[in-house]
């Protein structure tokens, strides 16, 4: 039976379409979200538009050969999509007007012996692109340093760990990168299958963005928590976690959020189980929101800790735009205001959204 809070959210959804329209169409501009999704057997990257009438439609879409994961708005205006790990391709779509509004598409295929790990990051001027990668021979994590225009690789730096996933600029240490080493051992011949989890070694590393030198490395006390997705909120870095404990109960109860304050890492517990899987993270009010598809909702954490789980089936992609947090789920979209008030919901097309979307 749904909890009272989830029931109230459901009621708000029935009443919320006009409010959603107002939220999405602030200043007359419809909200545009770049997303990746699956429909039937096809994988696509595209743009969803939440228009002034509150309806969400697919404004543009492009077929991609395998499932996409990380999405990045490039400083020049285009969109960069990265294949899901272990991935083979990068796609740059659209020019200064953004994806779906003209401009060429460019594909870049991974170099032999390497695999993309799902996320990328651009320098402020767009001249350099940093991609999380895996050395297929050794399994070691790498940052590929690429030319922002041609996407060709210029250098490789070790991430000092296994299974690198997301990377972000370091808000506390200008000129440095933060990389989440997920730490899950994988092998080329077993793809995403997790083996030898007793060898798991997840860490957060700080690398000098000029040459890749290691400036710091931090680990959680629990070696079965994989640090994967990153978001800054002021001087605090939130990290969404993926639990890899052998026992289902331990996974079910495991925390989904860790915080990094520049000195150390700690997990944040919640009074209710969140199924041990945070698939995405975004800053929200004084804390963070985490997409928890296995817990069927968005977990909201304030500065003091856990606040609520907002019910949304298959909740995962999150984006902050127009003063709200936008969460995607199975056939539905939810907009949450940091102030008082219930979330408002709308429909999205019948597509299976991937982990991430970004506001354009």
């Amino acid at each position, binding site marked *: 039976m749904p909890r009272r809070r989830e029931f109230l959210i459901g009621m708000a959804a029935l009443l919320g379409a006009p409010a959603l329209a107002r939220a999405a169409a602030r200043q007359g501009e419809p909200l545009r979200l770049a997303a990746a999704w699956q429909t039937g057997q096809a994988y696509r990257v595209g743009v969803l538009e939440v228009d002034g009438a509150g309806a969400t439609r697919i404004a543009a879409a492009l077929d991609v050969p395998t499932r996409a994961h990380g999405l990045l708005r490039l400083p020049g205006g285009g969109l960069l999509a990265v294949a899901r790990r272990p991935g083979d391709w990068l796609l740059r779509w659209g020019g200064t007007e953004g994806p779906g509004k003209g401009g060429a598409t460019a594909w870049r295929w991974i170099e032999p*012996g390497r695999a993309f790990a799902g996320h990328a990051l651009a320098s402020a001027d767009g001249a350099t692109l940093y991609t999380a990668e895996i050395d297929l021979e050794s399994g070691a994590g790498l940052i590929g340093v690429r030319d922002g225009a041609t996407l060709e690789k210029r250098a490789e730096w070790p991430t000092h760990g296994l299974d690198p*996933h997301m990377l972000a600029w370091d808000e506390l240490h200008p000129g440095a990168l933060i990389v989440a080493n997920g730490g899950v051992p994988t092998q080329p011949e077993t793809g995403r299958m997790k083996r030898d989890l007793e060898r798991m070694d997840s860490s957060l590393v700080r690398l000098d963005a000029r040459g890749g030198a290691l400036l710091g490395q931090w680990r959680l006390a629990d070696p079965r928590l994989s640090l994967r997705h990153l978001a800054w909120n002021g001087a605090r870095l939130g990290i969404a976690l993926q639990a890899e404990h052998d026992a289902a109960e331990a996974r079910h109860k495991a925390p989904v959020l860790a915080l990094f304050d520049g000195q150390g890492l700690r997990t944040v517990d919640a009074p209710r189980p969140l199924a041990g899987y945070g698939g995405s993270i975004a800053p929200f009010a004084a804390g963070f929101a985490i997409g928890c*598809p296995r817990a069927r909702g968005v977990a909201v954490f304030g500065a003091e800790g856990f606040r609520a789980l907002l019910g949304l089936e298959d909740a995962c992609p999150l984006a902050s735009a127009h003063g709200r947090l936008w969460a995607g789920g199975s056939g539905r979209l939810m907009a949450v205001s940091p102030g008082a008030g219930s979330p408002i919901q709308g429909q999205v097309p019948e597509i299976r959204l991937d982990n991430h979307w970004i506001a354009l």
Partner: protein
Amino acid sequence: MHLRTFALLMSLFAGQAAAGPFVEAVQRDWLGPRAADFVRDGAALVPALETLCAATPERAEADLAQAREHWLRALSSWETLAGVAVGPVLERRAQRRIDFTPTRPRMIEKAIRAEPKGPADMELVGTPAKGLPALEWLLWSRPVQPGTPGCRYAVRVAEEIRAEAAALAAARPATQDDTAFLAELVNQWVGGVERLRWPGMEMPLRVAMTSVPAAVPDFPRRDSHAAPLAWSAQWRALRGLALEGEGSLRAALESRGQTEAAAALAQAVAAADAAMGGLTTGEGTRILAAAKSLAGLKALVESRVAPALGVNIGFSDADGD
């Protein structure tokens, strides 16, 4: 005392549980015979290369052709064994040991200069300079000449392949438990169909199609032009372990009363079989159609077969990230 009970007690005394009937069936009907084929063809590589190395100038071309022929046979039996990498192939990381790609010509040249004399010396050579891909390079890209260090190095590489084949044939799946082994088989079957579909067939085409200027697809086993042979062998493994005998996915489904899922699997395999038949590298449209058929088959195994068998797919697109 029944023989079966006696065998069970003996294995318990030896500290090992008896293999479950499904593990036993896969070992008996598939892994054992396929490993034996690879032992035969892998072992034949060594004398073929020794003959080439000792050949007179007049015999060199014919002996090179003979060595190539043996390499193709070894490749075919290897791809059939490793097309679904379960049991010893997975546990020994045999694909990494003897089929690591991309091969690295500079490492091969360095290894030739070091003139390794035996297994201990070969331990010092990196995997990208060894195995079937390195031997392909030594037989096609830079064909070795009789009496040269390159030819002797090729013999060392073949000896390692022979040793690995023997080790694979001697080993048994580490997992004796039927449930655990079935989970491994389903996961690796899905991984195998994806390896064939994407890096084997579709990705090289997509890369070529998006290249400026347009390029020729760089299919696996390019130097030997053996991509169709490799596709066919991998597909044989996938088809065999899907449908044939007591150690197949179909048999596992039927034993659980999942006859509808078993029939759907058989139908999808038949469709893919028709699409895969006689494929050659020059037929882009047919290759894409076959890849699509394999994608449909993979989706079916993930969405219907695995749940019907109670197996969680760790390899799957439905897993978290």
